[in-house]
């Protein structure tokens, strides 16, 4: 999504082609929001779907972490800098800058939750794969393990939902102000 300077390549390319760079940044932000929303929606619909997108670290199209990091980088590269095309609208640019710390906090929480859940998930799968004959009392242990796994998944999903919710709420500032 980004070039060597962390700047989204499409923004750079279309800006040089004469299109309004501000519109391009807005389009990139909307696209990132839609992508994240779709991912979160699928995971809310079927929480086990989170497992695949959490483990797909190297698959940038599928990885939820890549989507979260990409969204954060997009803001860092195209919205916050003083040469951002969004600065043409001083109110919008200032509003984004005021949200910077808060948004970074949501970002950190999402990444931490992802990291934590990935470790729990990998450990859970390792334990499940370990071949051992079932014995009396194992069901309680399995149940406990599953509960820990599901609790961690719920926490991860909640952190991702908050991150996406915060990002989506920030984009509401692009809605035009109606005239009387």
């Amino acid at each position: 999504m980004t070039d060597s300077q962390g700047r989204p390549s499409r923004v750079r390319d279309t800006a040089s082609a004469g299109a309004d760079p501000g519109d391009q940044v807005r389009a990139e932000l909307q696209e990132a929001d839609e992508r994240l929303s779709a991912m979160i929606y699928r995971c809310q619909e079927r929480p086990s779907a989170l497992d695949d997108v959490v483990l797909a670290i190297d698959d940038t199209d599928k990885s939820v972490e890549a989507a979260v990091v990409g969204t954060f980088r997009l803001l860092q590269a195209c919205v916050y800098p003083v040469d951002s095309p969004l600065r043409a609208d001083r109110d919008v640019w200032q509003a984004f800058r005021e949200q910077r710390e808060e948004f970074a906090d949501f970002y950190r929480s999402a990444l931490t939750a992802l990291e934590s859940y990935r470790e729990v998930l990998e450990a859970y799968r390792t334990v499940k794969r370990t071949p051992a004959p079932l014995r009396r009392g194992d069901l309680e242990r399995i149940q406990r393990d599953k509960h820990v796994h599901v609790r961690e998944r719920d926490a991860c999903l909640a952190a991702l939902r908050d991150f996406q919710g915060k990002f989506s709420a920030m984009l509401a500032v692009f809605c035009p102000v109606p005239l009387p």
Partner: protein
Amino acid sequence: MASAMIGSNLYSFTTIYCALDRTARHGNLMSEHQGNVVTFPARGWTDGHPSSRPEVLLSAVGHLDELSRRLEQLSPHASWTARRWMIASTPFRMRLVGVRSRLAELMLYRPATGPDDGYWLLELEEAFRKIQRRIHDLDACLLTLQYGEISPADRSRETEAFLARRSELGEVATRLRNLIIQRFPELTSRR
């Protein structure tokens, strides 16, 4: 003591005179004194800007409408977590940046259209002060709900306080909006 009603407020004539005098000194409303006769400026903006600055008024009204709309969209509940408050209030807080700018512009380019506008300007200033106070109150309330480590009971009370303050802010925003529209009805047909 002699007094007059401005909007729903009762002012003594001394207060009105002082306010007009302050308006005159800071906003050049009364630009010239000839003996005991005060010459009002021609129709226009008090800072000398040409009278065709409807975009400032239009923009201020638009932002006030949008702010009210964002406030109405919030349906808070006492069970909301701090994070939930942060997310839900984001559009409102981001709109506040524009509202503050537009209000500052409005007061900087105070529109004065003639000798009868002294009272209107007083009302405008009063509404401006009120909206600033209400925004500050609501901001303080939101800060507590977003960052304060408070008990569920206190959170419930703060949520109630937020609803009350939101209602107050909505009222003064509508008041300010109506003041502008009533004085400049042509604005609504300028789009």
